[in-house]
């Protein structure tokens, strides 16, 4: 399964590094990544492959949530199929 991770919030140094490190730690392989900063507002989207995950998806999402809280960000991790079914016919 693949998941989409979105990170939004005020820009600061090392956001991508922190999220990527967490992905590596849990065995989530980054397939694609795009990010932009608009007027100090940071938005990143990441497609990750979870087939070689070492922890259950729920625990990984919890960790992401902790990271979000610590850095004043909003992080969502959702199954890729949500987007595929909503936006593609």
């Amino acid at each position: 399964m693949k998941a989409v991770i979105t990170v939004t919030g005020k820009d600061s140094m090392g956001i991508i590094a922190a999220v990527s490190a967490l992905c590596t730690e849990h065995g989530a392989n980054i397939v694609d990544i795009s990010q932009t900063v608009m007027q100090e507002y940071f938005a990143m989207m990441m497609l990750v492959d979870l087939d070689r995950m070492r922890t259950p998806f729920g625990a990984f999402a919890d960790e992401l949530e902790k990271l979000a809280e610590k850095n004043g960000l909003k992080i969502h991790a959702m199954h890729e199929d949500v987007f595929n079914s909503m936006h593609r016919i």
Partner: protein
Amino acid sequence: MLNTNDILETVRMIETEHLDIRTVTMGISLLRCAGGDPAGLADRIYDTVTTRAEHLVRVGEELEREYGIPIVNKRVSVTPISLVGAGQDAEGFLRIARALDRAADTLGINFIGGYTALVPKGATESERILIDTIPEALSSTERVCASVNAATTKAGLNMDAVARMGQIIRRTAELTQDRQCIGAAKLVVFANAPEDNPFMAGAFHGVGEGDCVINVGVSGPGVVCATIEKCPDAPFEELAEVIKKTAFKITRMGQLIAGEASRRLGVPFGIVDLSLAPTPAVGDSVARILEAMGVGCCGGCGTTAALALLNDAVKKGGVMASSRVGGLSGAFIPVSEDEGMIAAAKSGCLTVEKLEAMTAVCSVGLDMIAIPGDTSAAVISALIADELSIGVANTKTTAVRVIPAIGKKEGESLSFGGLLGDAPVMRINRADPSRFISRGGLIPAPIHSLKN
């Protein structure tokens, strides 16, 4: 790679516009419990429900985490108890109600529907006994929901049942007076009740269904409202288009979750209910959608037309997004569960009469309306008769879920908390209809019921 805007749109829908799956409801047939020792029936029902739905809550929570979309309610509906318990006496039916309540508690779900009688043309003795036990069943349990189908377009309107239900609703409210008359909020009287409705309090598992199914109700008034606000001056064709597109996306989400829930639970997928179900939260209101279209205040002139457009567009957009659509499918207008409706009712702009007109063009009926505590049973019955007539004549589902606010009068309110919200006590026409109600019998089915 997925389109960035699409991803952000979905995240925004969930984060700020209250997009959620309103309910994943497992329908369970209890017909196989009916055989065997009548004394053991309640235990067999408890065992069947708790075994079938054992993993419902766990799987629901798993899906929430994995797909990142809230699933607000996980619930169970069962075969109408009047059929399963045919032959039981009043105590037997109450034992079943308590067993259902216990089962819901064990499963960790907030409501279980199916304390139901289907009596559009006439009632059997068992059905009459079940109806008589509703006040006690609902006041002595917490999670059981009851419904009575008292009319269909095919059969007509069973006025004996309607007369009785006025008394039953009042009695249920009286018995739960110390709990904001909550009993009446768990009781619905229907015309043309659907057999696969996943929404409470009217959910039951019809006899035309299989052993077990998963039905899903989607939601998203906030998402629709946000879309409409983006086109303040668009002509109606354009408005209908944007609503359709939004409804499509919302429903696809419902279909995805329904399919996955069905696969993981090993239970066939039933239907997706294309409903716009509000909550008392700000930004999750159907009334506010109508106001965003340009109606000054929900209940003012133009409200019915706006609602008709909304309801039609939601269905048109949703129907292509799901492999099977059913249930109530349409915009809900429960007063106490909708922040905008509450405000409109309090200001006096929204009246019971206008709500009745609105139900002619949407799903589902006079829903979650608190009426003065001294309203007579005959007036409640007459209100039911009016509402069900709209359903019968228009071949659609209509329903009544009114809560007599015992000890309270117009201007006060009932506070249920949670998704049931706050109900301002609304004015109701008190002209005495008792001679009309006491006639008894059946209002014949309309001519267009003869289709063969």
